């Protein structure tokens, strides 16, 4: 069911900017505002946010994680720390990690 909805109307998660927009909507912003916010931070158009080909290149360039595992690329917490900085948002697990690691 979830996969079907994702194909019919979803942004595509880390294939695109879906996870980034989801982070902003979860803070209470409507989808249009959230997309505008993320697009401005990534310096792309609203249209580009859901373009898998463009976002693959951009995510790899920004090193913020993607569906394809690449040796040496940021994954998990490493990618999220970059996302928090890139979007200028608080991510609870990132703050917790920094605190636990003494960063």
């Amino acid at each position, binding site marked *: *069911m*979830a*996969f*079907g*909805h*994702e*194909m*019919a*109307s*979803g*942004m*595509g*998660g*880390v*294939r695109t900017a*879906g*996870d980034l*927009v*989801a*982070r902003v*909507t*979860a*803070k*209470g*912003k*409507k*989808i249009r505002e*959230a997309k505008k916010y993320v697009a401005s931070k990534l310096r792309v158009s*609203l*249209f580009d*946010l*859901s373009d898998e080909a463009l976002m693959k290149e951009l995510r790899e360039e920004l090193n*913020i*994680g993607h*569906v394809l*595992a690449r040796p040496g690329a940021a*994954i*998990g*917490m490493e*990618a*999220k720390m970059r*996302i928090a900085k890139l979007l200028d948002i*608080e*991510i*609870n*697990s990132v703050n*917790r*990690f920094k605190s636990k690691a003494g960063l």
Partner: protein
Amino acid sequence: MSKIFTRMGDGSGIWMSEAEVRADLEAGMQEAVKRGKVPELTAEDMERLYEIMTDPNKVVSVERGNEVTHSFDAGTLKFGIRGGVPVDRLATILAHERAFASDSMELAHIDYSYKPVKAIAHEERQLMEQVQLNTIIPVLYGAMSNVGLYTKPDGPIENWAELLPMAKIKEAQEAQEEATKHATKDMIYVSEIMYEGGADGMNFDSVGASGDADFLAALKAVEYLKNKFPDMEIEMGMAGEFVLGMHGELTYDGQRLAGLYPHQQVKIAEKAGVTIFGPVINTNSSKSFPWNLARAVTFTKACAEAASIPIHPNAGMGVGGIPLTNTCPMDAMSRASKALVEIGKADGL
């Protein structure tokens, strides 16, 4: 006149004429207007809905640029438990992130209510910590408020469902008020532990399943958590389209909870501190899919227009216009997905 393949609300396939489809769309929309006292869809909306319903393609999608982000209830229960795939919950979330294109995910326990999770909250936190280290997408923790679990013999409270038929109204109301206190306390206890474990936020799911006391318990928990953790992301998904008045006189911020429909529920949820609201519109399995979808879209649009926060209508089996069948056909699911987003103005599902 050509016939159009569509479905009944139970998922079974039917053929309808163009006139029959239009008539059912109109009747479903009017049913929502009458029941919820919400505005009618515009003529343009109805024409768009008809186009979606009669699109000759088996699977449809939103237009490029109209994509939204999706969230989950019972997140980790779908692939590993219901699907029977022998993977743990961390692997399930990674599969959603890397293979299923999920925008966000939810960590959940098989006994999906806050009361049973309380006993294992620290072990759940341990898994949340591991999940957060390994994943990129937002991961919330979720469970149901489920105030009914606090009644005897499973809990300490007299069962109001037994008291009410005996006309013990006052006793039934007092029992619900007492159960609310227990449920709120448990939701706060689990949420604090999960948030300290790195959860991006909490999902309160199937809220109102036990009636207005259930809704109140969740609202009070949200209010407390939002005051203590202002950055906490909180999603609230409802159990049904209408808050049952099992108590009947409970209020939140002066608003009586019994009888509220989605466009009214969302305003209360906002006041409490919810950041994503999940309205439910029930499917009538004996009516057609066009009837059900028109009804769901009408309620959804009214809710979206009333909301200041994003709304993610529930769009699983038997809700949001989706037929009441476990293996929902993609033709119906994709049409519901598109219509709820493009006409209903949903921010996600």
